[in-house]
């Protein structure tokens, strides 16, 4: 059994919490997020017959990336960077968060989640912007917290990236 610390990063209201709510086991209520600024959930999965336990640190999202404490990122083996597809500004926040994460813990694997796929027609992040990210070498998965589309895939991708 391998354990990994994973952080969920993203701007305000990008849907981090809803995104994982259906896929993780949790014993803490959401109010920890707004008080302590972090809430911890657990996600267990199996990659190529290897059991992996992901301790998910859901970090309270604020558009000001500076409020993310380095201590919360310390020791993480990877992270999920969540962007609200309907708000282009959240992609910028994600970029800053990514820079901060790299700054704090070094280059660890991460997956960019373009969330709210169910509202695709309202998206501000268009195809060119999406491909630009892919070209930059980012792993990008389009997800929907509402339908669950892409969520398991994102976890699986991250787990593989971390174990590589």
């Amino acid at each position, binding site marked *: 059994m391998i354990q990994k610390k994973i952080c969920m990063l993203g701007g305000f209201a990008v849907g981090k919490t809803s995104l994982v709510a259906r896929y993780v086991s949790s014993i803490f209520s959401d109010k920890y997020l707004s008080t302590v600024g972090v809430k911890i959930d*657990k996600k267990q999965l199996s990659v190529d017959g290897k059991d992996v336990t992901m301790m998910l640190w859901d970090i309270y999202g604020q558009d000001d990336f500076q409020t993310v404490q380095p201590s919360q990122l310390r020791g993480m083996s990877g992270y999920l960077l969540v962007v609200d597809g309907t708000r282009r500004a959240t992609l910028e926040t994600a970029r800053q968060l990514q820079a901060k994460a790299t700054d704090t813990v070094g280059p660890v694997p991460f997956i960019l989640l373009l969330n709210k796929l169910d509202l695709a027609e309202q998206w501000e992040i268009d195809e060119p912007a999406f491909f630009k990210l892919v070209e930059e070498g980012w792993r990008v998965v389009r997800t929907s917290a509402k339908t669950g589309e892409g969520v398991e895939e994102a976890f699986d991708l991250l787990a593989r990236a971390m174990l590589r």
Partner: protein
Amino acid sequence: MAAADDDDGIGSLRAILLAPEQRQLEELQVRLDDRDRRAQDIGEVLPQVLREHAHDPQLARALTPPLEEAITASVKRNPKPLADALFPVMGPAIRKAVSASLASMVESFNRTLEQAFSRRSIRWRLEAMRTGKSFAEVVMLKTLLYRVEQAFLIDRRSGLLLQHVQAGSGVVQDADMVSGMLTAIRDFVQDSFKVSEADSLEALKVGELSVWIEPGPQAIVAAVIRGSAPRDFRPTLQDAVETIHLQFGDLLERFEGDASTLEPARPTLEACLQQQYRAEERKPRTTAAWAFAGVVALILLAWGGLAWRTQARDQRYLDAVRAEPGLTVVSSERRGGKLVVTGLRDPLAKDPLAIATAAGIDAAGIEGRWTAYQALEPSLVLARATRILQPPAGVTLSLVDGVLSFAGAAPGAWIAEARRTAPLIAGVSLFDPLLAMIAIIESPNLLFHTGTPILVPGQDVEVRRLAETLRDFDARAAAASQRFAVEIVGHTDAEGADEANLPLSKARADAVRDAIAPKPFANVTISTTGVGSREPAVGTLDSPSSVRAGQNEADNQRNRRVTLRVSRLAGGPR
């Protein structure tokens, strides 16, 4: 050239000046390079190092793994030497363990007994019923000072759980997440109040529970404590953190998410699961209770002793009453401090109260309820007959198997009256005026000198009395119209042969007949016979040897005798 010369010059100078040091350096170099030599050097200082650092925990920890390896290897190769070495300590150790375990069992038994019956325990049981908790849980909460319920070993950087131990089998929230959250909260406090790394969060407290946190460079030990732990529990945690870092420092540093590598740290963590219960307070009530119990016991003892004494005295009295003829106890009981005896009493029996006095028992404590009856005990029948028949002076009554008789000279009128009245007396079946006389006639043994039919001196008085009785007997037999036969039987001792003894015995019988009945009687027939030594008064025919040997002249004398047998010839009781 000049420079080369200078170099040579300096070299020579150095060789001259530093030659001894150079040599020493070379020697040292050789010594350091030579493994054997180095081993020897270390060997010389090693015992001293070990001695001086004997109490250094680091040394102990460092030596533990190789020692364990060595012991394991030794046991694998041949377990006997170690077994032999341990043998003298195993016995006492096992005995000690067994006795300690017994003592603790007794202690726990005592505690259980105490808990089961005290007022406090009833209160706790009620509380358990009210709150739905188990009784054991309530007892634990009430007597617990503190208990370390869980201990976490947490990776300091990631907050990942490395190891988790818990006391008992209670339900524990997902330790992984608790571990992460603890770390997050710790970070939160540190970030929020901008405190230095050294002043990190040490404890959290919520109601009965507190979490003590002891950080190390790589990992944190967190202990979840119920109740209030003493300050000196902190060093236990510090020691655990230090030990774990010392033993597993490398593993902690290289930790990549596989917690199973830190499995060996569990014992250290388990050592943190301590607990302490409130010492039983000694209640002064206990003393009072013991004193009360003592007084009660004394009273019971005294009462029991008194009751036992009374009962023994009653029994003694009743036994004496029962032994007395004419008194029959039907029932007895203690009522109102008195012994009430109910029974039957013959008017001629002894006064029961007099029996009490004679037995040294206070008659005032006895109440007799006696119903009169006529007892059939011979002594009472005789007393009753004496009272009713009022025999004249010189006449005594006797009773044998319900047949009343008398001895002595009695007027014919009295005899006639007695013959009529006696059978009406309870306990008397028949009045036989001759019976008592027959007994008198049959009673004497007339004794003789050895080998002769001559009576020993003094026997003539007996012979004269017998002759008178016989005459009287003949007269009464005539009055009663009865006939009797009296057989005079002669005996000898075992000395001599039958041929001599038989005639001798016959001669002795004849001599007596001549003395007591020189003339024939009207109603009594006299006959004589000799039986030799065949019916000895002393000794038996089977073993007459001692008698024959003449070892006992007194016995021989008693056997040289004449006896009389009376038999009724014309019917009537005999």
